[in-house]
């Protein structure tokens, strides 16, 4: 237990092997010292290991089946519609741990934990995340904090820049990396300012930059990758390690100013690895007869177009540098109130699915399959048929071979109720775990004749091999222990345990008293106090 501050530093997407390589090469002396003097191991991520689900699990101490954030795109219950995950949705289903601390009068500083928009009004500060915050929206609570940041840091951005469809030749990557590091150094300075200015008992500060950078150039360490370019790799294969050096300096600064009774935890929510090929699950379900498309002239026309003309047109548009722009314009025309919904007209999407003849479908990437059970508006699968449909899909997926790479594509298929214990609401029925090097994609248009395709990004985190993240803990309250594996739902109860506060009884995870010296491990309900706080804030806000 500690009377000091608990600092939790999240480095989104950093794979343990990248950190180990940097430590072994002597590039990361602070990480090396923390690991040597404290506890070290891995963080066990969610299934699939994607940030929206992972950080929601971290924030609530709950299994995804209980917090309900299964993906970036969430399916409506008993329906086919989808919406993007937001902080409001997470709060509707569950209670992030900073709200539990708030009712105990404990202030927290939270930065960039997704889904973070809109930022909550809990005691302390809260800065929303780069995925759910609309451009120009008020990203901080209290609101004055955003103004201070914009005044103090000319280039301050809520998240790191992506390459935005830019090319990957040497000059383009040089330019991108330079811009990327300028933004991130500014963000690190802003983080230091937060730590200096705010007296919070728990500081939860997440850097999303490692994940973004690895998506863009993580493949440059893999000479066998189809997108590997020797000249670019020569200059940038170690750029992700250069980024870790920035955090190493930041951690040196932080540990120098930490008091004896403070505790530091460094984690990543998942790992990262190169992607060689993408697999379109909806196209495969269609080819196998589990998903049917309508027979309207428009859908039939689109099928012909996508299966016979699209690849040539795409190549031409890419050569002219127009593909990214046109694709985005088409996607944006959906529901924008314009005269023509080009997305509906030109893409094969949910609108083209013949639900009354469909048994299974996906609504997002990364392998979660829903069975079209009869509790859906146009459901077809009865309770008696459910097991047989699930087993048929599982068997077919596990037997599937990639004809080009001559290997299996799917390593495992888990039942939703096993992956998400006590799964409530629109819980996926099956969760596919791809082999390393594959990503299970969800394209905005479905090429029915093509189940394999080029991945959108050359690196990602999707297989079991990328499920492990980093874990390091340091401070007087930390036991000297190596090779521990900490579940994402164990962090929140462990923070209460460290602060000697009763653990909220809704949390699924258990406190890690093998890693941290014991505090309170009793559990109690916070439901009434959280409800009162939320109601009062809502009333005061409306005054």
């Amino acid at each position: 237990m500690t009377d000091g501050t608990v600092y939790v530093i999240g480095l989104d997407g950093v794979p343990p092997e990248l950190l180990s390589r940097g430590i072994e090469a002597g590039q990361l002396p602070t990480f090396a010292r923390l690991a040597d003097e404290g506890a070290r191991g891995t963080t066990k991520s969610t299934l699939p290991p994607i940030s929206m689900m992972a950080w929601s699990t971290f924030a609530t101490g709950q299994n995804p089946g209980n917090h309900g954030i299964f993906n970036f795109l969430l399916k409506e219950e008993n329906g086919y519609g989808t919406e993007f995950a937001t902080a409001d949705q997470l709060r509707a289903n569950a209670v992030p741990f900073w709200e539990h601390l708030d009712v105990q009068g404990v202030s927290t500083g939270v930065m960039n934990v997704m889904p973070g928009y809109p930022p909550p009004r809990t005691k302390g500060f809260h800065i929303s995340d780069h995925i759910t915050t609309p451009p120009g929206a008020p990203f901080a609570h209290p609101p004055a904090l955003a103004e201070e940041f914009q005044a103090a840091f000319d280039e301050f951005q809520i998240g790191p820049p992506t390459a935005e469809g830019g090319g990957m030749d040497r000059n383009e990557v040089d330019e991108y990396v330079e811009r990327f590091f300028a933004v991130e150094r500014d963000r690190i300075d802003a983080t230091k300012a937060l730590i200096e200015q705010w007296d919070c008992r728990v500081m939860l500060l997440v850097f999303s930059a490692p994940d973004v950078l690895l998506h863009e150039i993580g493949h440059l360490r893999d000479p066998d990758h189809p997108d590997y370019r020797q000249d670019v790799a020569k200059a940038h294969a170690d750029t992700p390690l250069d980024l870790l050096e920035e955090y190493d300096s930041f951690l040196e600064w932080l540990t120098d100013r930490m008091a004896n009774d403070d505790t530091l935890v460094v984690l990543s929510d998942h790992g990262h690895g190169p992607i060689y090929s993408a697999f379109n699950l909806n196209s495969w379900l269609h080819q196998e007869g589990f998903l049917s498309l309508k027979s309207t002239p428009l859908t039939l026309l689109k099928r012909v177009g996508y299966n016979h003309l699209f690849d040539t047109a795409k190549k031409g548009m890419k050569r002219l540098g127009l593909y990214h722009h046109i694709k985005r314009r088409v996607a944006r025309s959906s529901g924008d109130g314009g005269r023509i919904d080009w997305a509906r007209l030109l893409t094969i999407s949910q609108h083209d699915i013949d639900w009354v003849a469909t048994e299974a479908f996906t609504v997002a990437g990364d392998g979660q399959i829903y069975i079209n059970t009869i509790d859906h508006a146009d459901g077809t699968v009865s309770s008696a048929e459910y097991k047989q449909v699930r087993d048929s899909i599982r068997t077919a997926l596990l037997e599937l071979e990639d004809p080009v790479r001559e290997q299996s594509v799917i390593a495992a298929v888990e039942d939703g109720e096993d992956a998400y214990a006590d799964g409530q609401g629109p819980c996926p029925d099956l969760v596919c775990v791809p082999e390393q090097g594959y990503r299970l994609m969800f394209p905005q248009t479905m090429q029915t004749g093509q189940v394999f395709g080029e991945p959108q990004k050359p690196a990602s985190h999707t297989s079991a091999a990328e499920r492990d993240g980093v874990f390091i803990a340091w401070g007087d309250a930390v036991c000297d222990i190596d090779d521990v594996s900490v579940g994402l739902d164990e962090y929140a109860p462990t923070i209460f345990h460290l602060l000697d506060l009763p653990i909220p009884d809704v949390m699924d995870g258990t406190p890690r008293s093998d890693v941290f010296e014991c505090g309170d491990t009793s559990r109690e309900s916070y439901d009434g106090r959280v409800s009162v706080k939320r109601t009062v804030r809502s009333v005061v806000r409306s005054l």
Partner: protein
Amino acid sequence: MVIMPDIEISDELYSRYERLAAKFDDFENETALIQYLLESAADELERNVPAVQSDGITNEAVKDRLEDLGYIE
């Protein structure tokens, strides 16, 4: 502790707080609930922090970012 005899609440309102307190495990009784409510309201009013006027999530912006990161193709 100050006793506040001038605050009158109807029997009906008091009963509602009794029922609410019974609903949640973390309040010993209706008095604990009312005290917590008053304290929370005072804290919030004293903070005097303007509310963040949050915009609705714009699906296009989220979609663009997810596409840039490779989560949507």
